[in-house]
Each structure stands twice: as C-alpha cells, then as structure tokens.
C-alpha cells in the first residue's frame, strides 16, 4: 500500500508462454477439432441415412408389392417382387432382430434419430469448447510474439472487499440454507459450552418443576417438544452419523429415511419462506443472531423454543452426556426440555417463565403442521 514501493511484477508473456509452445498447443487443439469434425460429418451421414430410411419404410406399405432388382452377390441383380410390404425385421443391435410393422419400425427409427441428434449436440458443444481453446492459444501465441508483458500487482483492497462479500454471502446462505448445513457452519466449541449451560439449566428446571409439582405445564411442553426433537435428531444424525446411530430411532418412527428426507426437504422449503416463520422455522434457522433477523419471531417464542444452534450440536454428544448425567436429565431429554439461549442469565428464571404462558397455546399450530407433513 505504501507509495514508492514496487508493488507489482512485470513478466514478458513470452517467458511464461513461449510462442512456439503456444503454437504447438494451438495446432494440437486444431487436430482435435478436425477429428471431431470428422465424427460430426459421420454422424450427420447417419442422420440423413436414417431419414431416408424412415421415408422408405413409410412408403413401402402403400403398395401391396413392389417390383425391385434383388442384389445377387456383389455385382449381379435379378428382377424380383417385394411382397409382405408391412413386415419388417428390424435390427435392434447386438444381433437382436424384432418383427415390426412399418409404423412401429418408423417409431424405432425416429427414436434412433433422436439419439443421434443428442450425440450431435454434445459433439457440437465439445467443438465449441475446443474452438474457444484454439483461439485462446492463437491469441496467446501472437501476443507473446508481439512482446506483450504481464503486470501483476497485489490489490489489497479488493481482497478485503471480497472477504466481506463472501462473509455476507455466507450469512445469507445461513438464513436460506437451514438444517443440513447448519451444523457445519456452527462452531462446535461454542455449541459445547452452550450445551453445558443448557444441561445445568435443565437440572435446575427439573428441581423447580418437581418442587412446584407443575405437571400439566410439563406435559404441554412434551407434546410440543417431541416432534421437534425427533426431527432434530433425524437431521443431525443424518449428516454426521452412520445409519447405525439413526436406525434405532428410524425404526421407532417406522418411516424410511428416504421418506423422512423428502419430508424434511419439504419442510425446509417451507421454513425458508420467512412468511411461514413459526416455531418450526425457528429450529431450522441455524444461529441465534440470524433468527433475530426474522421480524415475525416474538421474543417469547425464542425463549420458549430450543435454541436452534444448541440443538444442532451433534446428537451423539447429547447422548454421551445424558449417560454421564444423573437419570433425571435423561427424563428431561425425552420430553420436558425448556431450552433457552445461554445469553439469558440463569438468574432470570422467573422472568423467562412468565412469557411461557402466553406462547403456550401458540406452538400447537406449527406442531400440527409438522405432523401433517410427517404423515
């Protein structure tokens, strides 16, 4: 960036690409082009043959019989009469012949013509590529001969911009692409810490719930949480774990993974639409800061619903920890999980409890939709 310093390098193009080499490459590409041209001509010959054949086959059954000269050996012919003009023995390839009528034969021939056309198309595409390559080599050769130089200079600012741009794109991707990609994007370490915090909270929650005897509330949540969780489990497992870890769950649900995948994709599509934003789309949006961008999300919902980022931590991690923790947590995991992002201090328990009540009725809608999709 400093002025006065040499910022770039100047290299004559001829030292990078010697003119001779470029010419050689160009001639090689030209040879390839002519080869392709030959193939193309051959194919076009086939196509005209095929067209003529179609015409002939269509014309033959118009008469009951035709007077023809039958070839006899290489040089001799004798007059003959063509009868059964609507019976053809068509070579299908590989020595297989089938008896067909004129109409059916024409159909076969037309299909063959289509195959030929597609071959011609692909050949033409490769020809275009080769031609572009050849012209590039030619241009390089002539430029090298003219003594053109290449000036290279680091453009720092551009790099900076690019980085910003890519990060922006990433963010957008994060909002749009959900579920499958999200765990990749999320940082595992942060996730782990969040998981720990969550489990701590869960334990406290459990104790509190037990003390209050607040059973009905728990059951409400259970209904809401289980479908969400099963989905979470599904796609977490799907991306990072072998069939073995998922199979138990899949069998439970008695749904094939393919079906689930389809369903999930549908759901993903639904969740990418911000207007659909509901409890379901929350869980598929990967990061907390991203979800906050969705204006239709209420704070209470976010508190209520499991923090999606934390959720996307690999399931095995969860399993592992449930094993190490006392049995009360495993119970919590199956149903009555109340999760919230770790930023919310644990001391604010009562505060977070209150907004739970109004939103308690809300999740019924997303759940029902999910169930509908899963069926």
């Amino acid at each position, binding site marked *: 960036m400093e002025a006065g310093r040499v910022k770039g390098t100047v290299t004559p193009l001829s030292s990078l690409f010697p003119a001779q080499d470029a010419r050689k490459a160009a001639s090689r590409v030209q040879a390839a082009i002519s080869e392709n041209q030959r193939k193309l001509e051959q194919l076009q010959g086939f196509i005209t043959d095929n067209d003529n054949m179609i015409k002939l086959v269509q014309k033959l059954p118009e008469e009951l019989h035709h007077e023809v000269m039958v070839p006899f050996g290489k040089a001799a012919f004798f007059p003959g009469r063509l009868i059964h003009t609507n019976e053809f*023995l068509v*070579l*299908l*390839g*590989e*020595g*297989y*012949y*089938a*008896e*067909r009528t004129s109409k059916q034969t024409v159909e*076969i021939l037309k*299909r*063959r013509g289509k*195959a030929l056309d597609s071959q011609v198309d692909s050949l033409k595409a490769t020809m275009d590529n080769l031609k572009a390559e050849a012209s590039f080599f030619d241009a390089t050769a002539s430029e090298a001969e003219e003594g053109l130089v290449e000036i290279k200079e680091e453009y720092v600012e551009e790099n900076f911009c690019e980085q910003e741009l890519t990060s922006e794109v990433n963010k957008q991707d994060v909002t749009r692409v959900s579920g499958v990609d999200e765990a990749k994007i999320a940082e595992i370490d942060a996730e782990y810490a969040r998981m720990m915090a969550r489990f701590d909270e869960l334990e406290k929650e459990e104790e509190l719930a037990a003390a209050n005897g607040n059973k009905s509330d728990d059951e409400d949540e259970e209904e809401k949480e289980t479908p969400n969780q099963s989905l979470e489990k599904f796609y977490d497992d799907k991306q990072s774990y072998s069939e073995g870890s998922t199979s138990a769950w899949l069998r439970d649900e008695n749904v094939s993974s393919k079906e689930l995948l389809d369903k999930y994709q549908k759901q993903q599509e639904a969740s990418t639409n911000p207007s659909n934003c509901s409890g379901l789309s929350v869980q598929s949006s990967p990061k907390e800061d991203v979800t906050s961008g969705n204006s239709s999300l209420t704070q209470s919902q976010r508190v209520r619903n499991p923090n999606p980022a934390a959720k996307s931590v690999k399931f095995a991690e969860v399993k592992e920890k449930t094993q190490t923790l006392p049995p009360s947590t495993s119970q919590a995991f199956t149903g009555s999980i109340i999760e919230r992002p770790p930023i919310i201090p644990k001391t604010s328990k009562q505060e977070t409890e209150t907004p739970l009540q109004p939103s308690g009725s809300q999740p019924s809608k997303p759940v029902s939709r999910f169930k509908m999709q899963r069926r």
Partner: protein
Amino acid sequence: MSSTSALRDLQRELEAKANDLSKLQKDIAKNHQVRKKYTVQLGENELVLKELDLLQDDTNVYKLIGPVLVKQDLAEANANVRKRIEYISAELKRLDSALQDLEEKQNSNRDAILKLQQRIQSLQAGKVKA
C-alpha cells in the same frame, strides 16, 4: 575405474526401467482401447434393452447367431441383454481399477527414472572434474 562400472550399472538399470515404462504405457493404451469398445457396447446394449422393453409380448424376436437368425423368447432376450449389460459394467469397473493401478505404476516408474538420470548426471559431472 569403480565409478565407470557404477555408471554402467546405472545406465543398464535406466534402460530396464525405460523398457518397463514403455511397456506400461502400451498397457495403458490397450486398456483405453478396450474400454472404449466396452463403452460403445454398453451404449448399444442399453439401446437394445430400451427397444425390447417397448415391444409387445407377442412380438417375434430373433438373434443373429453366425449366419442364421434364431428365434428367441422376448423374455429370454430381455434377460440376456440385461445380463450382458451387467457383465459389461463389471468389466468396465475392472478396467478402471486396472487402469488406476497401471497409472500408479507408471508414475512410480517415472520417478525412479528421473532419480536414476540425476545420479548418472552427477556421476558424469564428477568424472569430468576428476
């Protein structure tokens, strides 16, 4: 005296390696040819299968065996073509792995040759100086 004999040994080795390399290259070229043939056959068979699928069940199907056409069951012909496609795909897979093997060998051979050439050059340089 010893350096000259060593040099001769190296050159002999180099020659042997060069021979091996050219053999390998020939094998690779052959592999490519065979593969091309099989690919063409696979395409043809797939075309045949498509056409056979489109035929009615009562259509007469013949197979050209030598100079004569032998009548065949449509189902039988279908099964035969399917089997043939299977075989060809398996063969193609085999050829692919063989090709990979050959290319690996070729690369290692090339490296060995390069090393040998370098050693010969250094030896010759030493002799010139001496």
